[in-house]
């Protein structure tokens, strides 16, 4: 059935939905522009009146404050930009390590929650339900004030067989240090890594071709480990021992040697790891449970062992469900690392707020900080889009 236009006459434009939509959008955008202009105008004039007009030139000035821990050269004579860079690197450090360890713990707890062993199952449930229902900030402040700053003083440090010392000034652990043969050995190490990688790639190809996927990553790792071990002795023969274990020891009033981890770092790090692992555990559990029971039964029916079922059938399918929420947990961990300010760890946000207090440049610093976190999440979003497309292509 068709309408003849001439029978009804044209719809007047004020009742035509297409025009109305355009008008509505123009009105909204115009209103937002006016509002935005008004707000920014207020901001600029307000800052002008305070004598600190909006500008980022102050970032070149000397910071004149110390930062507790830094991965790069930094002193109180460095600039604000360098201070922010120190903070950014600290944020990246704690986020990266946090993500790695939270993933490991999260997977363990997630699998434990699915365990048929009643006690293990219940213990994992208690772990998850306790942590998921208290605020991270409370947990962090608790860890900082009642755990890591409550450890014994340096002179009666808790020792773990001499490999690690726990004190209220920080935690000292044994750490490998490069020595004479390192210059030679590092090239051997790189070579071993490349060969291991190639072996893994070959095994992976072979699996693709024959349809019987070997444990390609295990192959690669074993080859790498063997080569690294053999070349260790070659390097020792050529140029002396490549590395030695540096044990921390009490010298004077403090521990020297090994790797020292400040209580602030330990508080934010363990806090983020434990808290996020509870959420990751739920993600992992949901992912594994999303694979239908028939898949498991079919795998058993064709004679796969428990481990093979997990590796070849359950895990690849669970991954597709796990990855998206997992990335958002990683992003949450990164954003939550901004709570480091509560435990005194100098991350980006904490350094930023020190600068705000000192230079009075709140607007600029907040913009910079937000910009950095935004970049992190946009990069993650890009990766996610890529990953989703990738898995979709593989799928069918």
């Amino acid at each position, binding site marked *: 059935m068709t309408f003849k236009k001439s029978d009804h006459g044209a719809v007047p434009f004020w009742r035509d939905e297409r025009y109305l939509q355009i008008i509505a959008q123009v009105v909204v955008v115009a209103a937002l522009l006016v509002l935005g202009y008004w707000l920014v105008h207020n901001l600029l004039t307000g800052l002008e009146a305070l004598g600190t007009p909006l500008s980022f030139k102050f970032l070149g000035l000397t910071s004149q404050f110390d930062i507790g821990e830094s991965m790069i050269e930094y002193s109180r004579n460095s600039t604000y930009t360098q201070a922010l860079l120190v903070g950014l690197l600290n944020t990246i450090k704690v986020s990266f390590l946090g993500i790695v360890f939270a993933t490991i713990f999260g997977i363990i707890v997630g699998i434990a929650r699915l365990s048929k062993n009643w006690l293990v199952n219940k213990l994992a449930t208690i772990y998850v339900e306790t942590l998921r229902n208290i605020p991270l900030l409370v947990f962090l402040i608790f860890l900082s004030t009642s755990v890591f700053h409550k450890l014994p003083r340096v002179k009666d440090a808790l020792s773990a067989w001499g490999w690690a010392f726990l004190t209220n000034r920080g935690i000292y652990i044994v750490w490998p240090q490069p020595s004479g043969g390192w210059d030679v050995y590092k090239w051997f190490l790189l070579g071993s890594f490349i060969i291991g990688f190639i072996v893994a790639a070959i095994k992976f190809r072979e699996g693709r071709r024959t349809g019987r996927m070997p444990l390609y990553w295990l192959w690669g790792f074993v080859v790498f480990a063997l080569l690294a071990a053999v070349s260790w002795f070659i390097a020792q023969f050529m140029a002396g021992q490549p590395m030695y274990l540096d044990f921390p020891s009490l010298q004077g009033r403090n521990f020297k040697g090994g790797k020292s981890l400040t209580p602030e770092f330990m508080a934010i790090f363990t806090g983020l790891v434990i808290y996020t692992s509870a959420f990751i555990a739920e993600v992992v559990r949901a992912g594994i449970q999303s694979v239908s029971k028939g898949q498991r039964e079919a795998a058993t029916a064709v004679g796969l062992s428990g481990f093979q079922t997990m590796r070849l059938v359950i895990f690849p399918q669970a991954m597709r469900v796990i990855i998206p929420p997992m990335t958002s947990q990683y992003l949450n961990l990164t954003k939550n690392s901004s709570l480091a300010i509560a435990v005194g760890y100098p991350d980006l946000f904490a350094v930023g707020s020190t600068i705000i207090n000192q230079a009075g440049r709140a607007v600029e610093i907040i913009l910079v900080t937000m910009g950095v976190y935004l970049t992190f999440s*946009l990069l993650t979003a890009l990766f996610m889009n890529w990953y989703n497309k990738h898995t979709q292509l593989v799928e069918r």
Partner: protein
Amino acid sequence: MTSLTPAKDILPPPTERSTVLGWMKKNLFGSIGDTILTFVAGGLLLWLIFAIVNWILTKAQWAAVTDNLQLYMKGQYPASEDWRLWLLMFLLALIVGMAWGIFLKRAEAVGWVLLIIPVVLAVWLITLHRESWWRFLVVDILAMLGYFLGKRYPKKLARPTYILLLLYMPLVILVVRGFGENGFMKLVGTNLWGGLLLSLLLAVFGIVFSFPIGVLLALGRQSKMPALKTLSVIYIELIRGVPLITLLFMGQLMLPFFLPAGITIDRVIRAVVAIIMFAAAYMAENVRGGLQSIPKGQYEAADVIGLSGWQKMVFIILPQALRAVIPVLVGQFIGLFKDTSLVALVGLLDLLGIARGILANPSYIGRQLEVFAFIAMIYWVFSYGMSYASGRLETTLGVGER
């Protein structure tokens, strides 16, 4: 056929072994690996229980908690105005009881737990020799009264209950804040709000106000109008990309600049604005999930019966979409309640802020463990209670099954 076993000799089929030993064999000592796991986990559990009990019995001193109960609950809110908070609590008990009676009709296990909590609190207060213990019992009595009324007259009371629920939030603001300089219901400035009261108010404000904004943003993101869509996407992704703490700092440090000189906004409201902005973006994404779950046929059916765009959304799509995301929204509410603790970092005295303030008092030096255990327990009870209750509600109401 004579070799058939006579019927009286046939044994009954083997039943699932339900003896304690059988259960243990199946669930704890199924294999060698299982046995080892059980011993490791059991050892860990015993050690944990021992450590906690040992700490509670020998080391813990609860003075930092019991001396300051009022502060934890309501901050500096004047004692003379306490009755207003209690009145709100009584009203809430009545409304919840009525809603329970009307919509659930059964006394679920959750209900009993909810009723037991005030009794436990009352007993605790009696042991502390506080006078206000009887008020908790009033809460229980009112809740039960509401339950029986709701169950008896579900038809008559349904509409008043809805209206009361809707009016409750504005009423809370009005009653807590008060009006007039002095006398009856005198004004209590937000600088005096604190403790659990402030935490709950922040979470409730956050969720109530972010809800409509979030729905609008979700609709904007789904709409076919390019400008609205772009704006919604930019807002949502911008907010979701930054930590809440930066927004709170922005609220405290930048918001005053955005307004013309001379206009100042109260610190609590600045924090609330930041929380609402933050929650709205997450709310929008949750609602979008619900919108996407509605089959296309629903849109088309609405078009066919001649509904306009707005009618279609309000009467057909949104009710179904929101119903589908109720569990997610509860989860978000819990997250928001936990996130309110961040306002302690910008100097507000919410539950965590008060706790930090109390620990700064020299007479409670070194009592961090007790104080943090106490406030963590409060947060835990509220969060876990909400998630548990919502899980039960879902199964009872069949949300998400249709």
